[in-house]
């Protein structure tokens, strides 16, 4: 037996999973409140005691951890054109597991500088211009940043021609600058790996200390990453497989939370037909999007406003004022989970479905038809996910849903949005115990065991 611990320091709960990597099997799971304000070890030790009690194991050979505690990894992205380098920068940060609080484009103004000071990001990703392209706006933005009152690690991943000058200027003004390859070296080419790796490195070197996680660093094996990063690793492994152990193929993960809904896809997303022309920025194989206005608690109000309060009132068969009242109640008391059937429970269920439908629609690409003198031509923007046959759901509002399968069906193509490239004919799975993050961590050194456990533990619904 070779027992290993995977720890997930969440914003609310510290979740600990004990795994025997030899068999492989999951030995025990436990969770306890995250104690970020005192000493993060308290919460962790409480969970660990439960594990020891159940398994009788005192010593764990290895310990891995991921964290979204203390607000996660807060980033802002700066680019030039919103649809191009600003979008590329945002994608790079998201795929490194960050929480992107704001994306800025063109020349920064005083108001935006103040806004960044208020946000106090952990890392700034600063881009703009393809290689050999724009220098004027990028240089102006660097000048602006020298006047800012907030300092944090900054990654420059813009036009390479001026990279050294930008870094020198910012360093003169006490900025801690790292240089990555341009996130968009040529037009519409997405090149996020270099920036992504730097973000992970900075997270480990600096952010962990700043977030009060350094005390646990001593007792883990120096692998600490943002939780979404661990989920992406798990998703990639499950999709692609490991050596002779096949994966399940292209997949999508929808994580419905109280504040946001995250969608991850591991899929090529290329056009399926010959008369389709791709448009816009290239799409990454592994893509993560986060919708800040689609959550079942803190952002419930925005979610209801998004679809229209009347629509929700219609479904619940109550007047809009009642919906408003219930919404306020849930926003103010986010900790409650409805177990009993009733109006509140129905609202909870409806919110989860809306979150899934909207977030997947935004994540997936779409087609536009053009009638040309040569016949019909289709333009595709974003990823074609119509052949993604595995959809995995997770997150409190979904796990507690009264009909999980029907909620997950909201991720599917429907005729009301005929040009959307959402998945169709998918099989649905539930990650009830947040095993994806734990297995992502495990996969770094034990991919075979992690893959087998993922396949065994994701429940088809």
């Amino acid at each position: 037996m070779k027992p290993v611990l995977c720890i997930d320091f969440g914003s609310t709960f510290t979740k600990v999973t004990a795994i025997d990597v030899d068999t492989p099997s999951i030995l025990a799971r436990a969770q306890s409140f995250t104690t970020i304000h005192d000493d993060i070890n308290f919460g962790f030790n409480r969970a660990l005691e439960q594990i020891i009690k159940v398994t009788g194991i005192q010593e764990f050979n290895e310990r891995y951890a991921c964290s979204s505690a203390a607000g996660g990894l807060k980033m802002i992205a700066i680019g030039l054109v919103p649809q191009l380098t600003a979008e590329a920068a945002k994608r790079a940060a998201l795929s490194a597991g960050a929480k992107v609080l704001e994306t800025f484009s063109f020349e920064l103004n005083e108001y935006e500088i103040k806004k960044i000071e208020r946000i106090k990001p952990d890392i700034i990703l600063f881009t703009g211009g393809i290689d050999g392209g724009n220098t004027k706006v990028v240089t102006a933005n660097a000048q602006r940043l020298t006047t800012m009152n907030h300092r944090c690690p900054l990654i420059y991943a813009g036009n390479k021609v001026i990279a050294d000058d930008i870094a020198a200027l910012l360093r003169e003004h006490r900025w801690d600058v790292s240089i990555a390859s341009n996130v968009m070296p040529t037009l519409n080419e997405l090149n996020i790996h270099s920036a992504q790796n730097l973000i992970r490195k900075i997270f480990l070197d600096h952010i962990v200390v700043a977030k009060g996680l350094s005390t646990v660093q001593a007792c883990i094996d120096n692998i600490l990453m943002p939780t979404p990063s661990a989920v992406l690793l798990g998703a990639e492994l499950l999709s692609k497989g490991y050596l002779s152990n096949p994966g399940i193929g292209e997949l999508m993960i929808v994580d419905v939370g109280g504040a946001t809904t995250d969608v991850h896809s591991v899929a090529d997303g290329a056009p399926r037909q010959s008369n389709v022309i791709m448009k816009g920025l290239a799409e990454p194989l592994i893509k993560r999007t986060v919708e800040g206005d689609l959550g079942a608690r803190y952002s419930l109000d925005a979610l209801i406003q998004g679809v229209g309060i009347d629509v929700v009132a219609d479904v619940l068969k109550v007047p809009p004022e009642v919906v408003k009242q219930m919404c306020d109640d849930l926003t103010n008391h986010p900790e409650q989970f409805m177990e009993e059937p009733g109006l509140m429970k129905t609202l909870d269920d409806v919110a989860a479905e809306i979150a899934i439908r909207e977030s997947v629609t935004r994540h997936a690409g779409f087609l536009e038809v053009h009638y040309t003198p040569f016949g019909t031509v289709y333009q595709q923007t974003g990823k074609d996910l119509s052949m993604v046959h595995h959809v995995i759901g997770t997150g409190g509002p979904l796990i507690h849903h009264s009909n999980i399968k029907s909620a997950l069906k909201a991720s599917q193509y429907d005729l009301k949005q005929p040009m959307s490239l959402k998945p169709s004919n998918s099989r649905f799975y539930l990650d009830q115990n947040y095993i994806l993050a734990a297995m992502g961590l495990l996969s770094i050194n034990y991919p075979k065991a992690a893959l087998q456990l993922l396949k065994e533990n994701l429940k088809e619904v």
Partner: protein
Amino acid sequence: MDQHTIVLGVIGADVHAVGNKILHYAYSQAGFHVVNLGVMVSQEEFIQAAIESGAEAMIVSSLYGHGELDCKGLREKCIEAGLETIKLYVGGNLVVGKTPFEEVKDKFLAMGFDRIYPPGSDPNDGIRDLMQDLGIDI
């Protein structure tokens, strides 16, 4: 010479790809850094690409007769986007039917284009003009 960047593309719902490839080759050979957007390019895409790439000229092609409609307002949008000095070149079968080229030329000059080329133009004419307009020594 220092690399000068141009943005190249076929505007509107036009899918004529062959001329686009020829122009890409010719301008690259002449020493330009070509950002080629390919076919079915909107005005917005031309502008976004020009901003990111720091381009000094847009070379717009239109072969299917809807050129006038597709090109309308491009100069105004460039001005709005801070690309006041960018050179706008256009060429191809710009209008439907047998309108005399001089009329077509006047129309596009009035729309803010700097150079207009009839069907079957030699790419070298455009390259020579561009070098002159950008003050590049040959």
